[in-house]
């Protein structure tokens, strides 16, 4: 058991050391979400107008952008496994008296903590888009982000356990990241799209992450918030699962369940590849 605990914190500690040592990575994982915020925000604000309750489009997508930042750097946990394998460091970890489960959970935790730091930094621009931050909000947000990032680290690691080259993994990542982000309700209310797309979105863990973070920022009104479609049809901007509007806790529970499954699969897959 001590081999598992030590594995978790030693590996996570090194991820943090490395995060601090490699600044370029920090900047690059901010750029992408920021560009989306600026381009989409500026581009669509005027056309989309306001949602009921005086929420403009930038305020609508901003919580999703935070989720996106966390996703990008969580998936990096997977990249880090592949890079370690390619550059040999993984061998140093594998011959140490650490359990395989501990190593993988450590990677996930390390990735999540760095993601959490980045998500928190993104909070700094909240006032710029006209949203206020309270201590209570931060207190709700951090655990939510942690659960979300642990889950997505699980996904990244699961993909990484079988990959041998960085290029291959990057390609696979691109293939995953775009659908993950665009089919999650970052940019549109999930309830407003055709049924087939709704079904896809509801299998996406990020959908619940975005919904939870949005409710944390915009208050419970976000789930009850109504968007007006052409023809006077109205929809909820929240996520409705089996006719039930999801609350924050329920969203987090769904992400947690998906994440636990992904992490388990990752641990299993890793223990099988690396004896």
């Amino acid at each position: 058991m001590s081999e598992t605990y030590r594995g978790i914190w030693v590996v996570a500690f090194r991820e943090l050391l490395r995060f601090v040592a490699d600044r370029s990575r920090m900047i690059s994982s901010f750029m992408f979400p920021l560009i989306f915020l600026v381009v989409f925000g500026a581009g669509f604000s005027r056309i989309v107008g306001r949602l009921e309750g005086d929420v403009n489009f930038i305020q609508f997508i901003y919580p999703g952008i935070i989720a996106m930042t966390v996703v990008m750097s969580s998936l990096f946990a997977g990249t880090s496994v592949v890079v370690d394998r390619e550059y040999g460091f993984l061998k140093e970890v594998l011959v140490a008296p650490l359990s395989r489960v501990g190593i993988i959970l450590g990677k996930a935790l390390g990735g999540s903590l760095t993601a959490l730091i980045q998500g928190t930094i993104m909070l700094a621009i909240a006032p710029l888009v006209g949203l206020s931050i309270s201590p209570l909000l931060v207190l709700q947000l951090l655990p939510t982000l942690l659960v979300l990032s642990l889950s997505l680290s699980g996904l990244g690691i699961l993909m990484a356990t079988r990959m041998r080259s960085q290029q291959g993994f990057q390609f696979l990542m691109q293939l995953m990241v775009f659908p993950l982000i665009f089919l999650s309700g970052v940019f549109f209310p999930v309830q407003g799209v055709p049924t087939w797309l709704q079904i896809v979105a509801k299998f996406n863990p990020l959908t619940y992450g975005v919904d939870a973070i949005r409710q944390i920022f915009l208050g419970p009104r976000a789930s009850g918030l109504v968007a007006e479609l052409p023809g006077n049809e109205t929809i909820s901007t929240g996520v409705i699962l089996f006719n039930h509007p999801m609350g924050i806790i329920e969203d987090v529970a769904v992400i947690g369940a998906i994440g636990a499954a992904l992490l388990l699969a990752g641990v299993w897959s890793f223990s099988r590849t690396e004896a």
Partner: protein
Amino acid sequence: MPIIEVDNLSKQFGEIKAVDGVSFKVEEGEVFGFLGPNGAGKTTTINMLCTLLRPTSGQARVAGLDVIKDKNDVRRAIGLVFQETTLDDYLTAEQNILFHALAYAVPSEVRKQRTKELLTLMELWERRKSKIRTYSGGMKRRLEIARGLVHLPRVLFLDEPTLGLDPQTRNRIWDYILDLREKQGLTIFLTTHYMDEAEHSDRIAVIDHGKIVALNTPDSLKDQVGGDVLTISSDNNELVEDELRDKYGLVPEVNNGTVSVRVPGGEEFLPQFVRAYEGTLQSIGLRRPTLEDVFLHLTGREIRDEKVDERALMRNAMRARYR
């Protein structure tokens, strides 16, 4: 009690028997050379000994611990230096050692004292706060040896420890290794493609096609080859060959345009042969057998002909260039 005991160890990958019933013992404090052509089962054996690979059958004990049942205790008892670099380039030397010490649960006072001691010995103390990216190949290798010793292992596995390094650096690294063995009573398990390096071993095992084909001290192995080595090149190598075979009853071999033959008492044989030979000789040489000859004799291949894991060499070179 031997520090490594291997008993009938085998590893099968599908149809291929990579290691086929290998048995040997290594005594404490010994430098044990493990030689063999690529694909002979060297790396597979090492990986089983350091718990990275599960044996198909047989047993192995390191420091009295079973490599299957007591995995984590075996890992604590051994230090490893692989042929490819396993350092984190983005961290400093000190941070790399810190990670290692934490992973092996080395108490912090011991860590601080050992870090200073080992980095000073390897002449890296001044550079401890530099990132590994700025290190040369020789420095990285020295750091890896230092790191492998932080947790006070009883056996140090060195897999091609000086691969791709220049001769001066190689010599220095060997000075450090032999010094460590002297001071710490460390057992060293070595694989190498450099025969001069293998000379440092107290005993050498040669593995081929998954089996141990010889195990003895370097001197006894050389004696086994059977006398001195005579190398002859002439206009007509076939004539030389025929004469050696028919007239003197020897067993010549042709390699790279020269005829080589093993003769007991070469000093007397040489003038005798030259006087009697009818054709024109271009060059002739006589020497004591080297480990190179031993290797050739046992495996039918010259170790130099082997591709010295080109991928690892290339990877190291690329890394030096792009990172």
